């Protein structure tokens, strides 16, 4: 024990000293063009390069992959020291979806080429999973990849792709075998995005924003070394990637977008009702209490799940968070609208409260549809947490070629 404590103290001192020598802060990040995505500044990239070179980016990974081979407990010490001074870049062995997926499943050639640049954010990435015909049923994808000589040729259409316009690579799932059941015929690639066969078109959302793109792929070329795992093993790679993605998806629901100030000292909903002179309305007060309660209950559930997790037992509560958040957002939007009444008919910068209520009303679907609809989420909770049996699946064991699709 004493030895471990000494080693921990030494590590903590080393990280602190290194940060003291190197961390000088970074300028605030700016939204990318058109509000789409965030650009990585040159200063930020330079900082990341330093962190990677020092082995702090991925402390749990072995030295040959830019790491230090530290056990989890010690890597947490590194993360805590970085967090204490507000320095980004460490803990990527937990949070860097791209690098983790590549390291776990990629060819030696691709790893040698991209792991470093991914950690330094020198290459942009996007996700090429969903298709117009494959939403909830992701294994129903129909983008095809065919082996031609030493490379693959890809044709199909992807959707809900953020960052596609600036990405250098997309993590792509495509069908490589049409004569086996749907999950077995999928392969996973790093598709080079900057080539003639890849066309990116922004997608206008119901919120009138463009956070996502459609990606049209026509005879695009992928080198064979960009295949992760083996042909037909793409579904397994995808599960690895999704696990990393979920682990970093925070409580990331967006609130207001008008920028109009909201109360920091009391619940924003209460402040909004007060501002509107409606705080005395007993019916509205019931709604306010209920929505605030939903928020607090979700926070309590999350705290309890984390405590359970810290004690080594998994908690069913974690999987409930997304469903809870959907209800919170839709209900908060409803109550905000009720507070405003006819005011919610308006929009634009002169009507920021209406702008916020209306935006929240529409953007709530981002959470209740995106990343698995509430209905799919209820299936997952019912099946994986409560152990209820799955629905019979008519397409599971037949060749994908015979699976019915939408007209």
């Amino acid at each position, binding site marked *: 024990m004493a030895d471990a404590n000494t080693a921990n103290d030494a590590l903590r001192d080393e990280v602190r000293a290194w940060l003291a020598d190197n961390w000088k802060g970074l300028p605030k990040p700016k939204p990318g063009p058109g509000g789409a995505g965030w650009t990585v500044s040159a200063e930020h990239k330079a900082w990341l390069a330093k962190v990677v070179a020092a082995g702090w980016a991925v402390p749990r990974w072995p030295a040959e992959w830019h790491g230090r081979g530290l056990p989890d407990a010690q890597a947490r010490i590194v993360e805590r020291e970085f967090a204490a001074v507000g320095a980004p870049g460490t803990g990527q062995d937990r949070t860097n979806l791209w690098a983790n997926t590549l390291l776990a499943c990629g060819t030696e050639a691709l790893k040698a080429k991209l792991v470093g640049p991914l950690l330094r954010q020198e290459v942009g990435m996007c996700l090429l999973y969903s298709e117009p015909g494959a939403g909830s049923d992701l294994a129903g994808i129909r983008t095809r990849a065919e082996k031609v000589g030493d490379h693959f040729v890809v044709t199909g259409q992807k959707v809900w792709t953020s960052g596609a316009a600036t990405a250098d690579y997309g993590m792509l799932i495509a069908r490589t075998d049409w004569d086996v059941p749907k999950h077995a015929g999928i392969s996973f690639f790093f598709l080079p995005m900057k080539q003639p066969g890849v066309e990116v078109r922004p997608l206008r959302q119901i919120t009138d924003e463009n956070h996502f793109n459609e990606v049209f792929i026509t005879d695009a070329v992928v080198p064979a070394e960009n295949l992760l795992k083996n042909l037909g093993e793409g579904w397994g790679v995808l599960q690895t990637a999704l696990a990393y993605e979920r682990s970093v998806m925070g409580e990331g629901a967006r609130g207001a977008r008008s920028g109009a100030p909201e109360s920091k000292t009391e619940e924003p909903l*209460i402040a909004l009702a007060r501002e509107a002179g409606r705080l005395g309305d007993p019916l509205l*007060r019931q709604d306010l209490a209920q929505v*605030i309660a939903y928020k*607090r*209950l979700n926070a309590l559930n999350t705290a309890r799940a984390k405590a359970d997790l810290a004690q080594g037992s998994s908690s069913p509560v974690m999987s409930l968070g997304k469903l809870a958040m959907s209800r919170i957002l839709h209900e908060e939007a409803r109550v905000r609208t009720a507070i405003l009444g006819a005011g919610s008919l308006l929009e634009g910068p002169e009507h920021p409260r209406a702008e916020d209520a209306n935006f929240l009303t529409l953007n709530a679907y981002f959470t209740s549809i995106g990343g698995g609809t509430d209905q799919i989420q209820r*299936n997952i909770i019912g*099946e994986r947490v409560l152990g*209820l049996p799955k629905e019979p699946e008519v397409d599971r064991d037949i060749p994908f070629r015979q699976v019915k699709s939408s007209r």
Partner: protein
Amino acid sequence: MPSLTPEERTALQDAVTRLLADRSAEADVRRTMETEAGYDPVLWTQLAEMGVTGLIVDEAYGGAGAGPLELEAVMEAAGAALLCGPLLGSGVLAAEFLQRLDDADAKTRLLPGIAAGATIAAAALTGESGAWTPEGVAVTADGDALSGAASYVIHGQSADVLLVLARTPDGLGAFEVDSGAAGVTIHALPTFDHTLRLARIAFDAAPGRRLTGDAWAAAEAALRLALVGLAGEQAGGARRCLDFTVDYAKNRYQFGRAIGSFQAVKHMAADLLLETESAISAARNAAAKLAAAAPDADAAVSLAAFACADAYVKTTADAVQMHGGIAFTWAHPAHLYLRRARADAQLFGVSAAHRERFLTALGA
């Protein structure tokens, strides 16, 4: 037993769960709910021996000296097993009411018996309005003579001693009244939840003994603690009800497959898991805040009060629906939980009132 470690608390909860699995199984509950007293004296003695009847009574008065956290844990187990008896009414509400008053003499005389389960005490805090507020008190004191009526008195028909809130010329007062005293008429009320016992108690110049201390402050403190206990009961009951409902959905076959494989049923179960887990979080949080005397304890207790009440009613109501015809029968236990949930949702104030209190506690 003060400030048990989390492990000790779990051990206590497990011990109560085991005892109730043995002594408060469905058949026991059904048998007990048909009796006049509405509780099993043998089980009551066993609970007393485990220190449960005197759980929150100070050690100085023969209790276990435990707090809201231990109470909540025990009540989760009690709620799951539909425990019948005066635990909440005598061991929590009445005991805490007396404990929060300043009357050392009454505490010395009464609390040891209450803690040991030998004395059943009933707190008469509200009248026909069932409002559990100062305005709800419908007993008036003329000197030490009480007149008027109290209602919804938990296990009032079994009580040896009544602790009565009454209007006096100098505000609300607390009075100790012998349940057998002249001028006291105890009328057992027929209850929708057959596992519950309630009484209406009429006072006609009944002799009381005024207890020293701030009566309403003591009543409020007692109601707060009782609400935490009730929240635990609701959370535990909801979770048990969901468990047997999910189990049924796995084993009931229609159209050649388990009904739980149908999304119409599965989605109800998923929604109920969110309700029941939120109830558990809310109940435990309220207990923790109250135990720590946190400044936001009032908000936490009010939140748990309506969140757990609503979750229990929804869970038990949906459970009947998910079972289908079998749960429309008297022989199936689902309605016992539904009845308990509906009763618990009325005790010590309704959800709408708790939501209002919650909002007020948040400064709105």
